């Protein structure tokens, strides 16, 4: 027996090989998850509430895991994208509303990504009027001229760069006893700013467009039902990575900014404010992480959005097609890019407002997408024997209900603050 055959017959090695082959969708999705909007939310949460909000990462993790596992399962079993399934199984008007919401939210989200690009390079002293156009052109070239798979591999490497947040956090010398205490015995409040922060964290961790992205990535990989258990591990690793990075961002900001009473509204502020407390190196690492995450998501977000809309409405799509072959696809992609860049470059644009409102729209959209998903994943005609079990349904429905209540509360509070006389 040759060495090759012996290796082939080793069960453990074979399993490892299959696992490495299916690895990717979950980890990449997990990394895109910690985009500029996410980093901003975690930084602001850490700066404003210290270690108090660390507990929210635990329910976020469970929700993320349950949702992405459903996506992976639907992708593996049906071989169809989420957009595809929604169009085929719900009325065309529901589909149109979901995708209209998705496009608007993602214009806001993409603007946030470019704000992240601008902010992170400002830490290094580059003006946004230089950095944003250059990065935008770079993204366009990468998408239209480059190979998507190559790009994805580059991003997979970049996702490791997000681990730089761990170093930033350690450099900030947090009070680990307090960290542990806040996880075991969370301090709950029931005032409006606290609740909207909680919702913001959950909403940014489990962003609706991720579900579409995750399912497409699984299909792209061509994972078969037999190898599904390995895909689950990929999802678990991705979710853990997401939450770990979020955890260290919050810790870094809590240990420095919150302790010293610094108030921030943007991730860039966090990077800059770190310098006096944790050193210039920690600040630059933080900015570098922000830059990578922003470019990563600024590439994938507009592209994915255009792709899902075309998938649902039956237009030609794909970056390997020429503009004349897939006009709707390129029009939508260009539209999202141009609008979001304009928003950033207009002097005095209400960036914080845009970030908050796109997060709110995310939070409103999330239950709609979740309900659609849970209904489809329980449909035997679609899933055969791979329908949800009782635990998955319980977590799914409970999360949906809690999200709807929180979102309702947030919307009411937003309306009250907007209407209240100053």
């Amino acid at each position, binding site marked *: 027996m040759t060495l090759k055959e012996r290796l082939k017959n080793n069960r453990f090695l074979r399993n490892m090989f299959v696992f490495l082959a299916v690895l990717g969708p979950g980890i990449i999705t997990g990394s895109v998850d910690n985009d500029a909007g996410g980093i901003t939310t975690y930084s602001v949460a850490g700066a404003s509430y210290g270690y108090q909000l660390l507990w929210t990462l635990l329910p976020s993790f469970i929700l993320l895991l349950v949702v992405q596992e459903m996506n992976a399962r639907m992708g593996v079993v049906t*071989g*169809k994208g989420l957009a595809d399934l929604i169009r085929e199984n719900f009325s*065309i*008007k529901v589909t149109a509303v979901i995708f209209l919401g998705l496009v608007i939210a993602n214009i806001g989200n993409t603007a946030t990504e470019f704000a992240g690009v601008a902010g992170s390079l400002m830490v290094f002293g580059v003006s946004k009027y230089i950095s944003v156009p250059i990065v935008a052109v770079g993204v366009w070239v990468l998408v239209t001229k480059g190979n998507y798979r190559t790009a994805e591999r580059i991003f997979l490497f970049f996702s490791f760069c997000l681990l730089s947040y761990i170093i930033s956090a350690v450099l900030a010398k947090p009070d680990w006893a307090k960290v542990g205490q806040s996880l075991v015995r969370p301090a709950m409040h029931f005032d409006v700013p606290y609740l909207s922060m909680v919702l913001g964290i959950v909403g940014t961790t489990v962003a609706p467009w991720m579900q579409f992205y995750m399912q497409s990535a699984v*299909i792209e990989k*061509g994972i078969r039902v037999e190898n599904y258990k390995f895909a689950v591990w990929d999802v678990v690793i991705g979710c853990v990575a997401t939450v770990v990075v979020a955890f260290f961002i919050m810790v870094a900001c809590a240990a420095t900014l919150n302790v010293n009473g610094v108030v921030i509204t943007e991730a860039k502020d966090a990077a800059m404010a770190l310098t006096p407390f944790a050193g210039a190196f920690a600040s630059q690492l933080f900015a570098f992480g922000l830059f990578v995450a922003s470019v990563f998501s600024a590439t994938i977000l507009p592209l994915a959005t255009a792709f899902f809309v075309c998938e649902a*409405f*039956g237009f030609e799509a794909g970056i390997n097609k020429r503009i004349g072959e897939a006009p709707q696809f390129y029009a939508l992609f260009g539209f999202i890019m141009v609008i979001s860049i304009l928003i950033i470059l207009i002097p005095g644009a209400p960036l914080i407002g845009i970030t908050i409102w796109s997060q709110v729209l995310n939070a409103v959209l999330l239950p709609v997408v979740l309900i659609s998903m849970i209904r489809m994943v329980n449909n035997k*005609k679609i899933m055969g024997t791979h329908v949800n079990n009782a635990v998955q349904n319980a977590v799914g429905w409970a999360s949906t209900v809690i999200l709807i209540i929180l979102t309702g509360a947030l919307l009411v509070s937003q309306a009250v603050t907007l209407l209240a006389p100053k």
Partner: protein
Amino acid sequence: MSVPEVTEKAAGAGASAGTVPNHGENMFIFVSELLGRPVCDAGGRRLGRVHDLKVRLGENFPRVATLHIRRGRGKVLALDWAEVASFSGRKVVLAPGGEEKMTAPDVKGEEMLLKEELLDKQVVDTHGAKIERVNDIHLLIIHKDLRVVHVDIGRRGLLRRLDLLRPVEGLTKWFFEYEVPEVLVSWKYIQPLGGDLHRAELKLNVAARGLHDLHPSELADILEDLDRESQTRIFKALDLETAADTLQEVEPWLQRSLLEGAPAEKASDLLEEMEPDEATDLLSELPEDRKRKLFLTMERPSREVLQELLTYKEGTAGRIMTTDYLTVREDQTVGDAVREFKNTTHPLESVAYTFVLDAGGRLRGVITLRHLLLMDKETPVRGLMNTHLVRVWTDDDLKTVAETFGKYKFLMVPVVDEENVLCGVITFQDIMEERCQL
């Protein structure tokens, strides 16, 4: 009744130009206009709403056979379409006593539900050789009967379904004098992919007629864009020859997936039907035990050819060569070569050359198609053949092969072993494909 085949037109303008026979509003109706309409008995009492329409496949333009009515909460009942007295106006009225003939719905293999299995689903448009999404279904009204004639795949249908046609078209007409075009494809070019997992296969067989009009490379493009279920299902519905040709055209990952999805017997038949060099490529990618099983069910001559080809190393001339070619012995005549040509029934990659061999199978020369056509039948090939041989050896690498093609501009180059025995040929197309992949 003349039915337009593929219609792409601005609705208003086209109708006046006469591309669609339009004798008033009621000539055609869209399925989306019927769905949800109230269903009443002859006395005007409301029974429920139109839930779905069932057609029998197999006819050129399938007739709506059954009406599915939703009564209150989730309860659906079926009723023969013959019981419908009228569906003009905003409601469907049944013939007297029709309400008593409602039964539990039951859909058989050769039947299809228009809403559940066709509307909003993907179909193959065999005329445009593309996958499209069904935005609406166009029914022709003949007396009281409805027949599926077109499928709407255009933006106009999409807007109509969203109730946005009027406002959007109002704007585009006002600003650009632009009417959103209607894109209808005749039913005879539409290949549904089937909805329900259990019945889909049967349905595809009834309706798979259009697929065979597609070129294998078009079929390959379509298969690559579909989900795995539909891929396997469509592939199963193809006849052996089309399936083998299509298998040669699809990407390697899909080749493996399709072959693994097919039963062993069918898989080995497919490999035999494929060109030997393509089959070898595919086989070399499969796991060892699967390969062995396939060889077991394969006919002997094909098996031996493929097993031999597999012994050559990857990236050599031997690996990409094919063993289908024309030969003649050097002591034979042009007439013999012509007979050999005529007796070769399976398609060859190229018929430009006939190779001349000695009794031991060694390559002696080559004659061209021109010789076969123009020369007297009695002429011995020995006198005609070109003995200035351009050839490659089985273990030559692909770069050498490509250079040989580049230098001599031949359509085909023979491949020989160390003893000069002809083992196979490489065509210009083979080497192009290899070089493109590099």
